[in-house]
C-alpha cells in the first residue's frame, strides 16, 4: 500500500527506485514504511517487502487558523 492505495511494484525496488518510479524525485518529501521513518540517507539501502504500508508525505498549504 502506498498512501492508502494498493500498488504493484517492480521486484527488488529500493526507496530511491520507488521515488523515481512514482516520478517524485524532484519533490521534497518524507518516507514512512510501516510507521517507521526511512531517512533519505537510507533510501539506497532500503528495500521493500510484500505488504509494506508506505506513506510519502509533503508540505502543503495549511495551518493556522
Amino acid at each position, binding site marked *: 500500500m502506498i498512501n492508502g492505495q494498493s500498488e504493484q511494484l517492480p521486484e527488488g525496488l529500493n526507496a530511491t527506485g520507488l521515488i523515481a518510479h512514482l516520478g517524485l524525485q524532484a519533490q521534497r518529501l518524507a518516507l514512512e514504511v510501516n510507521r517507521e521513518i526511512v531517512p533519505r540517507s537510507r533510501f539506497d539501502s532500503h528495500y521493500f517487502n510484500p505488504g509494506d504500508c508506505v506513506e*510519502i508525505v509533503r508540505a502543503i498549504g495549511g495551518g493556522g487558523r
Partner: protein
Amino acid sequence: MSTVMQTASPASTDPLIIDGLAYQSRLLVGTGKYRDLDQTRQAIEASGAQIITVAIRRTNIGQSSDEPNLLEVLPADRYTYLPNTAGCYSAAEAVRTCRLARELLDGHTLVKLEVLGDEKTLFPDIVQTLEAAATLIAEGFRVMVYTNDDPIIAKRLEDMGCVAVMPLAAPIGSGLGIRNPHNIQTIIENATVPILVDAGVGCASDAAIAMELGCDGVLMNTAIAGASNPLLMASAMKKAIEAGRESWLAGRIPKKRFASASSPVDGTFF
C-alpha cells in the same frame, strides 16, 4: 522643554523572540485556504509575516510532479516554517506528523502542536495535547502549542518546556474575536514564554485588541484567506498588529467614568 525626545520604538528594537530567534513581525500566518499558490504568496508578502505554518499531507501519487510546490513559492531563506499538526485528534497522530515534518524539512524542530477534541468546536483535547507535548519535547522538538484559554493549562504547558503557548481567542475559523480577554490577560501575566493568540480572530480590530492585551503575537489564517480581498486584509492585519503592539507599549490612559478636558482652563477670555 525636554531635550530628550521620546521616539516611537521601531520594530527592529522590539523583536518577537521565539526559541532564541528574533523576528520583526509579530503576525504569524497559515498558508491554507487560498485560491492558489500565487495568491498565497502575495497575501503572505502583504502580511509581512516571517513565520508561516504548513501542513504535512500525502503526496499525490500519479499526478504531475511539476505542479508548483509550496516550499518553492515560500522559500526557507525568507520564511521560518512552522509545520503544524492540524487535523490530528490524538497524541500519537500529532507526534507522527511532527517526526515526518522533521525528516521532510531536514531536521527542523520548531513545530506547532495542536490536538483537536471534536469536529464541531475544534477545541483542543488538552489531555492528548499534554501527552504529545511531553513526547515531542523529550525528542528534542521545539513546541509552540495551541491550547484553550485556561491559565492553569497554559502555565503547565510552559513549565513542561513549550517555547510558546498559543491560546485560542475563539473557535478556529469562527471569526468571533477575543471571547475571554480576562483569561488571555491572566495567561500573559503568568507567562515567561511568548503568548500568541491562535484562532478566532475575524478582523483587524480583533488582532489589535489581542496585542493591546499584551500578547506577543497573533497566528491566523482564515481571517486573511477567507476575506473577500485577502491581500487587503493581510495588509490590514499587519498594521493592526503593529498598532496594537505600539498601543500596548505606549501605555493606555485609565478608563474613567467622567470627562477630563484636554484644553487648559487658564487663559480663557469668556
